[in-house]
């Protein structure tokens, strides 16, 4: 269980998160929604310690995260796929993937790589290419694949559908869903694409100006026209 309690952060004078609290249950997808600039990215970054929390905490199975170094996240089973294209463009596709596998400690086995290539065949064709030449969508696949290399138990995804073709988005969400179902993965999914996100989420948390304004079961949120119009714009 990933538990966020009264988490607050600011950038200089700008308050980005105030007293955010919610829990993401084991084996569930929790969607974090909200307008641009609502603080979604900041939330994930604060949880994994990339941004210093000013107050509150985030714990995973009782283990404090916000004050733990980001480097330790993979060994705690937490994978954070950052916003934007977090590929290391100077490394090849395969090196990026191997790097993902190293995080959990130990060596990277060829089977691990093959597992990812099976998930994203487009990457298999380009394994020796520098990540620099990949198209936008290919990069997005690469970061996802890299996160999965570490076989995490918690996956923090920051707008994974950004720039992906509809079919791939669908596949991606299916993939996430299957990981949750088959492996009991816990997922915190930040999305603009609220509709798709809610279609696979168990729970929806809506942020606005750094505060939690809605925290509901996904069906309820998707079914409530008022809430949807007010916060999600569809």
């Amino acid at each position, binding site marked *: 269980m990933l538990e966020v309690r009264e988490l607050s952060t600011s*950038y200089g004078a*700008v308050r980005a998160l105030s007293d955010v609290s919610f829990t993401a249950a084991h084996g569930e997808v929790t969607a974090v929604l909200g*307008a*641009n*600039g609502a603080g979604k990215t900041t939330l994930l970054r604060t949880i994994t310690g990339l941004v210093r929390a000013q107050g509150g905490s985030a714990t995973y199975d009782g283990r404090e995260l916000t004050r733990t170094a980001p480097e330790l996240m993979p060994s705690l089973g937490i994978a954070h796929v950052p916003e934007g*294209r977090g590929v290391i463009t100077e490394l090849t596709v395969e090196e990026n993937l191997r790097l993902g596998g190293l995080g959990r400690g130990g060596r990277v086995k060829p089977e691990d790589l093959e597992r990812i290539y099976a998930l994203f065949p*487009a990457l298999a064709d*380009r394994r020796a290419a520098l990540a620099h*030449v*990949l*198209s*936008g*969508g*290919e990069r*997005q*696949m690469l970061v996802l694949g890299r996160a999965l290399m570490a076989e995490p138990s918690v996956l923090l995804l920051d*707008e994974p559908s*950004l*720039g*992906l*073709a*509809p*079919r*791939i*988005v*669908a*596949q991606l*969400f299916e993939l996430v869903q299957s990981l949750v179902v088959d492996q009991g993965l816990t997922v915190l999914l930040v999305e*603009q694409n*609220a*509709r*798709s996100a809610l*279609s696979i989420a168990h729970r929806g948390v809506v942020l606005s100006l750094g505060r939690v304004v809605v925290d509901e079961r996904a069906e309820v949120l998707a079914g409530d026209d008022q809430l949807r119009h007010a916060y*999600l*714009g*569809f």
Partner: protein
Amino acid sequence: MGDARPGLAMQDITVTFGGLTALSGVSLEARPHEVLGVIGPNGAGKTTLFNVACGFVRPDSGSLSWGGQGLPRLRPHDLAGLGISRTLQGLGLFDRMTVLDNVLVGADRDARSRFWSDLLSLPRSTRDEARLRDRARGVLDELDVASYADRYPASLPYAVRKKVALARALVSEPELLLLDEPASGLSDTEMSDLGTLLRGLTDRMAVMLVEHHMDLVMSVCDDLVVLDFGRVIATGSPAEVRDDPAVQAAYLGEAVTDA
């Protein structure tokens, strides 16, 4: 909608990178007052197509023409002079320049002052600068982001930054606008605003749009070209394309988006 002047035409463009064929025999035409959508799976070659149109990538074969004239050796910085603007798939904002300065860079080709008059700060230069400033503010205003004019882009919300990038492309009053995924990262509301805006632009220019958000594509495009593995697999109106089984298989999938 027929306009006598033809817009951008690409004939039989082929691009390869090492062993990889990114585009193969692609032909299309972006006509004035129309929005031409280019869609296709990731890595299909859409951005590469734009890069060819901009001179960033030289095609192995095929030709380009603009307004009926051939464009044999196009270089990216000639583009603005021809009346073509483009946004980048990333943001490509100048982080250490204010929003207004960012937009002013887009107006650069219209600056009349020259090096020497700048050096001496002649009245001509000052006047010219004021004129461009007004124009840049006008565009920012049109996109509803004028209040950010003196801020630096890095600290602004993503949607605002996207608009700034768009403003920079628009300020030179191009005849053809190439937009690479302008809606990525926008919320549904923002996206529909963008749709309205794009339709409005067709009064003034031709638009070529690469996008993965089908709602937007379907609602604003007049014509679509679908790429897969560098080939055109379908063309036609949005409705035609949507129902094309090849397109569904390659790109749309069982559209989750169609709730």
